[in-house]
C-alpha cells in the first residue's frame, strides 16, 4: 500500500514538475531481470560427414528406450515385428511424439532418417537370458 501511495504521489509530482521543466520525461527506474551472457567455451567437435551405420546410431542414442536393440519394449515400443508403416516410422524418428516421447530427430540427416528402416526391417527376435513379458504398448507407441 505505501508503494501505491508513493506511486500516485510520484505521478502527481511528475505532472507538477512538467510545469517547471517542460518536456521533461521522468523515467522511473524499475527492477529488471539481469541476463548475463553465457561465456563462450571451447568444446570438442567430431566430424560426422559420412552417414552413420543405423546399428551404431541405435547403440549411440536409441537403445536406452528401445531395449535389446529394438527387439523388446522398454520405455518405448518394441520395433521388431512392428505394424507401423515406413512413413510412420520415419515420422516418429524425425518428430518423436509430443509430450510423452522425446525425439532424437530432427537430429538426423534425411538419409539417416530412412536408414533405420532397413535396420528395423531386418531385426529378428533375440531372447535375453530369461524371457520376460513384453506386451506393453509404451508411452510413445504409434497406436496411441
Amino acid at each position, binding site marked *: 500500500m*505505501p*508503494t501505491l501511495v*508513493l*506511486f500516485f504521489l*510520484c505521478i502527481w*509530482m*511528475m505532472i507538477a*514538475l512538467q510545469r*517547471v521543466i517542460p518536456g521533461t520525461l*521522468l523515467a*522511473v*527506474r*524499475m*527492477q529488471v*531481470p*539481469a*541476463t*548475463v551472457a*553465457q561465456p563462450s*567455451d571451447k*568444446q*570438442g*567437435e*567430431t566430424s*560426422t560427414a559420412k552417414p*552413420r551405420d543405423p*546399428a*551404431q546410431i*541405435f*547403440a*549411440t*542414442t536409441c*537403445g*536406452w*528406450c*528401445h*531395449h*535389446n*536393440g529394438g*527387439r*523388446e519394449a*522398454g*520405455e518405448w515400443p518394441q520395433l521388431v515385428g512392428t505394424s507401423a508403416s515406413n512413413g510412420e516410422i520415419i515420422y516418429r524418428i524425425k518428430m*518423436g511424439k509430443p*509430450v*510423452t516421447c*522425446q*525425439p*532424437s530427430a530432427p*537430429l538426423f540427416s534425411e538419409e539417416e532418417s530412412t536408414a533405420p528402416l532397413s535396420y528395423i526391417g531386418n531385426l529378428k527376435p533375440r531372447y*535375453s*537370458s*530369461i524371457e*520376460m*513379458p*513384453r*506386451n*506393453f504398448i*509404451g*508411452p510413445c507407441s504409434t497406436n496411441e
Partner: protein
Amino acid sequence: MRRSMMTRWQRGLESAVAVLAVAAFALSTVHSWADSDVTYERIKNADKYPGDWMTYHGSYKSWHYSPLDQISSKNVDKLRIAWTHSMPRAIRGLQSMPLAADGVLYYSGPYNQVFALDGATGEVIWYYKQNLNEDLVSKQTHSPYNRGIALGYGNVYMGTLDGKLVAIDVKTGKLTWETKLIDSNKLTVGFTGAPLLVKDKIIIGSQGGEWPYRGPIFGVDAKTGKEAWKFYTVGGNEGTKSDARKTWGNDSWRTGGGGGWMTGGYDPDTNIVWWGTANPAPLYDYSGADYKNAGARPGDNLYTTSVIGLDPETGELKAYHQELPHDAWDFDSAVGEFLMLEKAGRKYMVHPNKGGFVFVYDRMGKPQNVWRLVKNINFVQDIKPDGTLVGRRDLTEGDHKGLCPFIAGGISWNSGAYDPRTGLYYKVGNEWCMDLTVKKTTPILEPMAQLNIGATFSLVPPPDGKIRGHISARDPLTGAKKWEVEFPEPPLASLLSTGGNLLFVPDPRGWLRALDATSGKELWKHNNGQGHNGGIISYLGKDKKQYVAVETGWGGLAGDDYASLFGKPYNSFPKDAGTLVVFTLQ
C-alpha cells in the same frame, strides 16, 4: 514581483518533492529481503527451526529427517489427508523435493513451474512458470522434470531445462533475474537438479553423463545472478591444479560427459561443498581390461563418478575421491546424499553410489569404509574399505550376459533418510540385472549433441531370483542391517524419517506407508492413486500443526519401464499427472 518569487519557490518545492517521491518509489521496487527470510545462517542452524525444511536435503546434514513429533508411532493411525494440490502439465509426474519455511510450502515441477502454497490449507499464494525454449525441451530425453529449488536472499532459485538459473521473488513469484549458464541449444542438456545455497552462492550442477560435453558445476552470486565460477567435472579446469585432462586419452575429455545432476551437500566445519559427479561418455566403453590405454576414453576419466569437494567461494577443488575410476557401467556418484555424521568423536560423510555400494568418508573425502547395500552386484567383485576396486568387469565389444545391477542402478537418485534417535540409515536398494551388447560409437555433436550410450541392453532378473527392491535400516558406517522390508517392484522415491519414531516410505504402486523407525513394523498406509517418484518432507503450518507432504506422479528413465516389466498398476498410471498430497493428524 513577490507573487512570481513565491510561484518559483512553490515550483522548486514541487520539484524537490517529486525527486524524493521518485526515489522512494524506485527504492520500494528494489528487491530486498527481511531477517525472517531463509538465509545461509538459518539453514546452517536448521536444528533451531524444526518446523521448516529450507533446503533440498532438509539441512546441511542431509539427513532427510524432521525433528517434529506431533505425529508419532503412537498416533499415526489418525493421519489423514489435509489437502492436495495438482500441478498442471505434470509430464512424468512430480519428482522434486518441496521446501517449507514459516508455514509456506514451495515446490517445483515439470516445465519449470513453481508454486507457493499456504502450508496449512494448500491455498495458492503465487504461481510461476518459466518461459522455456520448448522446441529444445522437446528434443531432450532426461526431461521435462525438475528435481527442486533453493531458498535464500528473498528468492526461490531454480535451474531450467534450457540451461538457465533463475531467481524468483519469494513473496510475489515474479522473476528477479535469470542467468544463462549452458548453451543448451547446442549441448541439448540443461538443469534438472535442485540448486544449493551456500553462503552467498548458489551452486548448481548441469546434466551430463552420456551427453557428450564436460558437465560443469556452477557457483552463482545469489544476489546478482552473476556467474562466479565454473568447475568442469570432465578434466577439471585448465591452468589449475585440478587439470586432469591427461586422464582422458585421445582428447576424449572434449566429449566426456560428467556433470552433477543431483544436489550435493555442504560441510560448514570444513567449508567444503561436496558434489557427486556423473558417469563418463560413452556410457559403455569397449576397452576391456586395458581401460587405461584402450577403448573410447582411455584412462581413469577424472572427475567423473567421483565425490568432489569444492570451495563455495571460488570453485577450487579442495579434495576428491573417484568412486569408480573409468566407470564402465553408468554407476554415477551423482546420485546420493552426503550424510554428515559424528560418532565416537570422529566425523564422517556417508555417500551412496548408484552401483549399490555405500562409501563412508572422513570429512576430507578419504574413504574409511565401503559396504554393500545391494546383494546382486558383479560389475566388480568388491570394493575395499580404502575404495580400491577388486575384480572389475570391464566390457568389450559384443554380447554380455547378466551384468548387475541394471543401468537404473542398485541405488537410484532419490534420497534415503537418517534418524539420529535410532542411529539408523534407511535406504532403498534394488535388485535387477541386464544383458547388453556393447558397440563402438562416435559422439554426435551436430547439429546438436545426442546421447552417447555405447550399447543396447535389456533388463533381466538377478541370479538369485526375482527383480525386487528393498528398504533396509542400516548402521551407516558399517552397513550392519537392523531390519529390511521387501517390495515386488523397486521403489524409486525419497524417504523421510521423523522425530516421532516414524519412517515414511512412498512406494511405486502409490502406497505411502509409515513404519516404526525402530522395528520396521508397518503402522499406517494410504494409497495416493499413482506412483511416487519424488520427495517427501514434514513441516509446521502457520497453525502450528505438523504436516507431511509427499509428491506423486509417475514416469522417468527408470519408471517408464515398469508398465512393460510389471503390468498393473503401472500400465494404467497417467503419464502427465502429478499431485502433492499433504497429511496431518485428524
